[in-house]
């Protein structure tokens, strides 16, 4: 898969996210799949479902969401399990689980390239794959990530790995598409209440563009498939 360098790649300007690129339905076996890159960070996601689930994991009134995160190098560890819970819960709030009782929806995300803004890219890739698989959802979810560096009052959106190393606080927020409320928030580092709110508002505003991207990607995908069949 080609991961082209965005023009002027090294430092993104403070209040501008990096370029988004995505491809949908590239895997033939999965029900839905996508590959998404934010700047130089790339993830591939696949969705299977709703499908049969083992008896011991079955829930009688709703679908079970199984989320798996695979790192590129090495075995999955504690950090990966934590992300699985975090992103899995985020997806679970969006998916209409009660429409598919005693079934499971399996979401698998594979890290292809890691250069900052991992969690946001992971959530977005998972969601695009869910859209591709036509799993019923109550709203779309998109995430944006920003950091606060020392000395600067402006938060930096979609940081690269180099920028993340110098950050004093790192925040990822996921919003829904209908009311733009916070669905998931994950922060590390030290920050004040004001900074938190500012980052939240900035991410909320930037996020709206990600929803536009989702709509465009879906449009491309559906227009292509009409010609195919």
């Amino acid at each position, binding site marked *: 898969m080609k991961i082209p360098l965005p023009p002027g790649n090294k430092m993104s300007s403070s209040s501008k996210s990096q370029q988004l690129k995505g*491809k949908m*339905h590239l895997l*033939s*076996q999965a029900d839905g799949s996508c590959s998404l890159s934010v700047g130089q960070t790339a993830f591939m996601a696949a969705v299977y479902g709703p499908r049969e689930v083992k008896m011991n994991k079955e829930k009688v009134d709703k679908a079970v969401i199984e989320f798996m995160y695979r790192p590129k190098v090495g075995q999955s560890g504690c950090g990966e399990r934590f992300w699985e819970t975090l992103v899995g819960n985020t997806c679970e709030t969006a998916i209409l689980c009660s429409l598919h009782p005693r079934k499971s929806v399996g979401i698998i995300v594979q890290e292809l390239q890691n250069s900052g803004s991992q969690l946001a890219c992971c959530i977005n890739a998972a969601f695009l794959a869910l859209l591709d698989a036509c799993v019923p959802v109550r709203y779309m979810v998109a995430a944006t990530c920003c950091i606060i560096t020392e000395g600067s009052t402006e938060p930096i959106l979609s940081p690269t790995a180099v920028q993340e190393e110098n950050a004093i606080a790192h925040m990822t927020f996921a919003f829904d598409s209908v009311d733009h409320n916070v669905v998931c928030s994950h922060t590390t580092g030290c920050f004040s209440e004001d900074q938190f*709110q500012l980052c939240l*508002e900035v991410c909320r505003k930037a996020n709206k563009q990600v929803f536009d991207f989702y709509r465009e990607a879906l449009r491309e995908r559906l227009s292509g498939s009409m010609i195919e069949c």
Partner: protein
Amino acid sequence: MGVNFQRLDGRGTYDYRKITITFGIDRGCCHVQIGDTRVMAQVSCEVTTPKQTRPNEGLLYVNAELSPMAAPHFEAGRPSQQGVELGRCLERCLKESRCIDTESLCIMSGMKVWAIRVDVHVLNHDGNLIDACSMAAITALTHFRRPDVTVSGEEVTILSVEDQDPIALGVHHMPICVSFAFFHQGKYLLVDPNEMEERVMDGKMVIGMNKHRELVTLQLTGSMLLHKDQVLRCTQIASTKVQEMTKLIEEALKNDVHERATGGQFGSASSQDPSHVTSHVTTEKTMEEVDTEALRELARETVLKGRETDRESPGMTRAPDITLLGKQTGRIGEGGLSSWDVEDIEESEEDDVEMIADTNVKVVRETSHISKCLGIDSSEDSEEDVTETLAAHHLGVHESSRGASGDTTIDLTTALNQQKRPAPGRERGKVKR
């Protein structure tokens, strides 16, 4: 296969599907696609102690994973039979063939060596995983650059990428596997079986060779019987295929070197020209600027509004009062000194439901969520257990006494006396345990 002996996708007996090799930005990251089968390999390195039996040699770990995204029947966790087979085949192809010069990975004999790790992830399974994985692994190993080290006495310094150009691994030869599928007890054979052909084949043969026509691994599996000359014929077919694939890999590597030098998009090579428009269109979006100044105002307002609402409803967001009761004992909230006396019960939390062992009376603190639980499940009522819920006023607890001290003592003697006569507003129901 139909009566005219054509494959389902129209290929000939010895034809491969379209092979595409691309690289990632990281060194040692390689994607290979054979038809719809997609595989990704990533090479990484770290410094460890060598094996005791071979103190001068570095280590090579090959880890092949059948990701659950590749096929619906792949599960996470313990590798299945197919996973073990794939892993062993790759190990034999790469490790036992000594394709990497492990002696050059030694930093300090007996103490520190480089351990190279190849992680191969199968992303989509449409047949012929072994070929794709072997191609991806050896291409990634050739593409990888390890950092340079300087040794001064006992100290080893790993130089960063900016200081010194990283070094390539010593690759002696490039072994690639070719798979054959056999049908009807060895009467028909196919090269590069796709997933449907693999499901119905009788047996499989995997031949690993390099371009110098040296066999690296040969394995015949499955319940079928072959003749010696069939095996020899397959090796001849395999050697032609391996020559083609090696040429493709070398071309891809050359493109990548060229692109990295000129700063363009990183290298790739494809075995056939894309002759049809695919429906996999890439959507792109360049993000626009976000005006932070206006948002700063909005953020400030939200914070102030939040602080106001905090002041209005002290229950939820009031900062906890901490009282020091004595040495090493403090109290936050409703807790207090412990008491072993059964009659003197102090609640530790607002939502707690306490049970007294001897009696069947459950003392329930009246809070909003507990009251919703009442009367839900009367189907499990057992007639022996008479459970009553007592409202706070039955126990002589007054709302106004809640305050800074938060200390409530409930005197059960009044409660027990009241049980003898029906108390007003008694509700029958069982609180869910």
